[in-house]
């Protein structure tokens, strides 16, 4: 406690105004041991400042806040955000520079989110500085950060150059350019990455001559950095830089570097080229696109890494058909790997190609991809089935679909299983109830006893959607008996699944089924030995209560809840009491 006592203690001496009393206590809370309470107070910082008035905010509150910088990152993040909106609270643009000291400290913090937020706030308030204040207060801060010892302050500086550059004198501009140059060749890769990621933004505020002299040499250097994580950021900057330059300079200043990037030895850099393809194309214009980019793009489509091919293939959709059809044929006959990379967009092509073209060119691909060894590829096809369904109808595919679905349903990665569950209602709708009962129902029930909770949860939700689709009668015949059977399972997690299913299904199944079939099972489970099951019984009763009629509520539900409300386990008690208070039992 004593350690936190700073200038704030003086804030207690409020000027007899009653309304200031809570403010003093609030500031005391800024020093509370409980993080949550400190966080709450920080979030109310503007209120505190408002109550203190601009002068005391400047002279007392801000120095105090500058002192609390050692606090937890969560509190610092809230503080960094608040300070970006503080200009009026310190007396307007004339005094905005008072906010710089605490934000400067926050911009050197280790935690990235805090630092980024501090930089964001600094960028925001930079606009509120007059040109003179910018040179007297803001720019020196940027310089200090740019020459800080630890990498964190230097990375923060990278984000501040472009906001002050346009509004300072030419001498200061020259200094800023120099600092940026220095950071681009910093010893620490973290700093070079930060500089590379701001290169495009900085280029935009520079005079064209300096773009040609300074930026291009920095761009070239960063694009051949020893670390691929730096090189790939240069590709991003390339888009902005190319947009700034006149067409006749592109060939000499930008293209050599871009060509090199498209053939970089690191797939991450090539990926970035593929991913930014549309933007690059726009930036360099049609002529260079035709001569340079299209051949490069063809190579990326045939890249040895699936990631790169996928990024390239994603850009296929927007291209003109007559360009792409030959590609698709080429893919079919030459490179087997490219086929799988196209999986995520290929389905979308069917709407563009129309029925005949889809059957001729795409259907064989779909079928082949449904057998692909990579689950992501199969999933991509299945998840986009709706596009094909509109064009050719899903029946064409159903025989090939089934094995693919079964495989995915049992994939070792639970996220893959989760993904296929989420498509189940869509598939069921398209394949029809008969096909579903025959082939897919077993899968849906098996998911209910998966060892991963997220899968069981999704399986429950899936059942609800199926009932909505196929109706209550179907539910009563096919799934309700199985779900209720699990109430006797020796594994309590499975017994709880019964309850979760009932929660999800009761509304869709309606009062009759809920009262006659589900309710007795739930009530019986109130005697379960595991407390988790019992309190879920209470929760379930609360959930299905609205579906039941008043008689069942009074004669059956009420006594059981009352019994649970005096359970020895406190959680069971809690949820039983909650259900009693919510349901109309009185």
């Amino acid at each position, binding site marked *: 406690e004593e350690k936190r006592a700073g200038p704030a203690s003086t804030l207690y001496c409020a000027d007899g105004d009653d*309304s200031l009393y*809570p403010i003093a206590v*609030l500031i005391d*809370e800024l020093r509370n*041991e409980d993080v949550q309470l400190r966080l709450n107070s920080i979030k*109310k910082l503007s*209120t505190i400042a*408002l*109550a203190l008035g*601009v002068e005391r905010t400047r002279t007392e509150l801000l120095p105090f806040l500058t002192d609390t910088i050692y606090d937890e990152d969560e509190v610092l993040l809230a503080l960094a955000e608040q300070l970006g909106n503080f200009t009026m609270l310190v007396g307007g643009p004339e005094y905005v520079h008072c906010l710089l000291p605490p934000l400067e400290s926050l911009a050197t913090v*280790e*935690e*990235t989110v805090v630092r980024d937020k501090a930089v964001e706030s600094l960028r925001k308030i930079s606009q509120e500085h007059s040109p003179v204040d910018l040179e007297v207060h803001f720019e020196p801060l940027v310089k200090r950060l740019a020459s800080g010892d630890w*990498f964190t302050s230097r990375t923060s500086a990278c984000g501040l150059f472009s906001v002050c550059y346009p509004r300072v004198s030419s001498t200061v501009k020259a200094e800023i350019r120099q600092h940026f140059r220095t950071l681009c060749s910093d010893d*620490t*890769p*973290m700093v070079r*990455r930060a500089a590379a990621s701001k290169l495009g933004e900085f280029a935009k505020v520079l005079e064209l001559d300096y773009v040609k002299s300074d930026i291009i040499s920095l761009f070239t250097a960063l694009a051949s950095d*020893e670390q*691929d*994580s730096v090189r790939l950021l240069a590709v991003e900057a390339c888009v902005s830089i190319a947009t700034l330059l006149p067409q006749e300079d592109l060939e000499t200043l930008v293209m050599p570097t871009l060509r090199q990037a498209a*053939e*970089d*030895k690191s*797939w991450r850099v*090539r990926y970035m080229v593929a991913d930014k393809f549309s933007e690059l194309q726009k930036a360099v214009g049609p002529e260079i696109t035709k001569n340079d980019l299209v051949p490069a793009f063809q190579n990326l489509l045939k890249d*040895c*890494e699936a990631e790169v091919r996928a990024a390239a293939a994603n850009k296929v959709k927007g291209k003109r058909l007559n360009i792409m059809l030959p590609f698709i044929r080429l893919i079919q006959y030459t490179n087997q790997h490219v086929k799988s990379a196209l999986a995520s967009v290929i389905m979308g092509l069917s709407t563009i190609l129309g029925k005949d073209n889809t059957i001729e060119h795409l259907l064989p691909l779909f079928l082949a991809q449904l057998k692909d060894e990579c689950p992501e590829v199969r999933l991509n096809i299945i998840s986009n089935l709706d596009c094909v369904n509109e064009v050719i109808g899903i029946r064409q595919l159903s025989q090939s679909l089934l094995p693919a679905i*079964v495989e995915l349903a*049992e*994939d*070792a*990665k*639970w*996220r893959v299983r989760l993904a296929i569950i989420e498509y189940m209602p869509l598939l069921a709708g398209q394949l029809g109830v008969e096909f579903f009962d025959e082939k897919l129902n*077993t899968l849906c*029930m*098996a998911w209910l*006893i*998966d*060892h991963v909770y997220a899968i069981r949860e999704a399986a429950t939700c899936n059942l609800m959607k199926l009932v909505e689709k196929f109706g209550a009668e179907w539910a009563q015949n096919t799934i309700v*008996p*199985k779900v*209720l*059977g*699990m109430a*006797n*399972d*020796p*594994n*309590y*997690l*499975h017994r709880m699944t019964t309850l979760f299913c009932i929660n999800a299904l009761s509304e869709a199944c309606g009062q009759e089924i809920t009262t006659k079939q589900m309710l007795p099972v739930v009530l019986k489970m109130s005697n*379960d*030995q*595991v*407390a988790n099951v019992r309190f879920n019984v209470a929760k379930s009763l609360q959930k299905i209560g609205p579906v039941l009629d008043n008689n069942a509520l009074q004669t059956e539900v009420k006594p059981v809840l009352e019994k649970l409300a005096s359970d020895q*386990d*406190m*959680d069971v008690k809690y949820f039983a009491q909650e259900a009693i208070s919510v349901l109309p039992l009185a």
Partner: protein
Amino acid sequence: MMGDRPNPPRAMSSAATTSPSVDKVDGFSRKSVRKAKQKRSQSSSQFRSQDKPIELTPLPLLKDVPAQEQPELFLKKLQQCCTVFDFMDTLSDLKMKEYKRSTLNELVDYVTVSRGYLTEQAYPEVVKMVSHNIFRTLPPSDSNEFDPEEDEPTLEASWPHLQLVYEFFIRFLESQEFQPSIAKKYIDQKFVLQLLELFDSEDPRERDYLKTVLHRIYGKFLGLRAFIRKQINNIFLRFVYETEHFNGVAELLEILGSIINGFALPLKAEHKQFLVKVLIPLHTVRSLSLFHAQLAYCIVQFLEKDPTLTEPVIRGLLKFWPKTCSQKEVMYLGELEEILDVIEPTQFVKIQEPLFKQISRCVSSPHFQVAERALYYWNNEYIMSLIEENSSVILPIMFSSLYRISKEHWNPAIVALVYNVLKAFMEMNSTLFDELTASYKSDRQREKKKEKEREELWKKLEDLELKRGLRSDGIIPT
């Protein structure tokens, strides 16, 4: 496929007739639920367009030529081994792959047993051959969310060659004839940088070899030591603050463990900075479990070197204490116990208050594994002696948590452990214990009152804000 599962769907319907036998089933068992996934392999990601088959002209065996011709032939073989094959294509260049494999084997034997083979010209060729083979851009990870408990690592397809190259390089570095003064021209900063990047390999076998290689280089090239440490720093910082993904953290920490062991005293500022600004933040990473043992070892090494670092280390851990992940909390508690095992009593006194406030929170965690792990401290004789010496400070911090749990924790095993701890405290300092017991109720009431006051305060504040807001049109008070 269904048959592979321990709980086939059939069991669901038949179970309806049997009565539940509740307490014997562990609902969380996850044994072999899924069929074992076949191991996958990957090739290095290289940008190559070699469609033609590779031809290498077979050379005579080294032992079959006169001694004076051996150095020359050794160089030729090294040059041949610079050729890299595509192992994803299992059918291509079979003969030449086999030829290279046997040549590499021969080279391994040769550097192990031969004398006088290491001419000055051989150094650049060795480094070149090693570089050509091992340095490559690692391919994209198969899964972005690699779960070491569930997923198999992807294995390097070209391992039959790669392993021999590593083997050869290690023997070369360890050879009696090896002279760092010549080698340093070729094994330079750029070489080390590329070597460090390979630690991201998903193949544990490769990382294991890399560990030995880097360790040897660190030992033999004094001029590279600071550079290596700095680059490891950068890898870790990037891992913590940017990507959260790097496969070789455990291996690098293992090397660091032995490096720290050799630090001279007093520790340089650079090393202390590494501890506080890199090793401590490593605890925040999501995948901590993959390298926690090695990390804790490094931390304890530091503290054994310089006990005055105890306070910043423990404060660092407390700052990053996990708020939602109980699994990590258990790891933190384990590490703290390791630290407490070597703590000096003078250091303990400096940190005991914040430390036991945290332990008190852990003890009352609703997650029984966390509570249990914290309560195990009371089985540690050394920690017990420290607690006993400072019971007048620690007991008041711990008391209310312990007392409350003894009344209301859901897990009977925890309640039993807490009774033992309370008993121990009672024996340590019965006067204080009685006082605390007596004042427990009034203390709680005071706390509740404070809580209520706070709530009222917030309410008042909201009114105030409303009023002020109206008066000043939202921004400037009059």
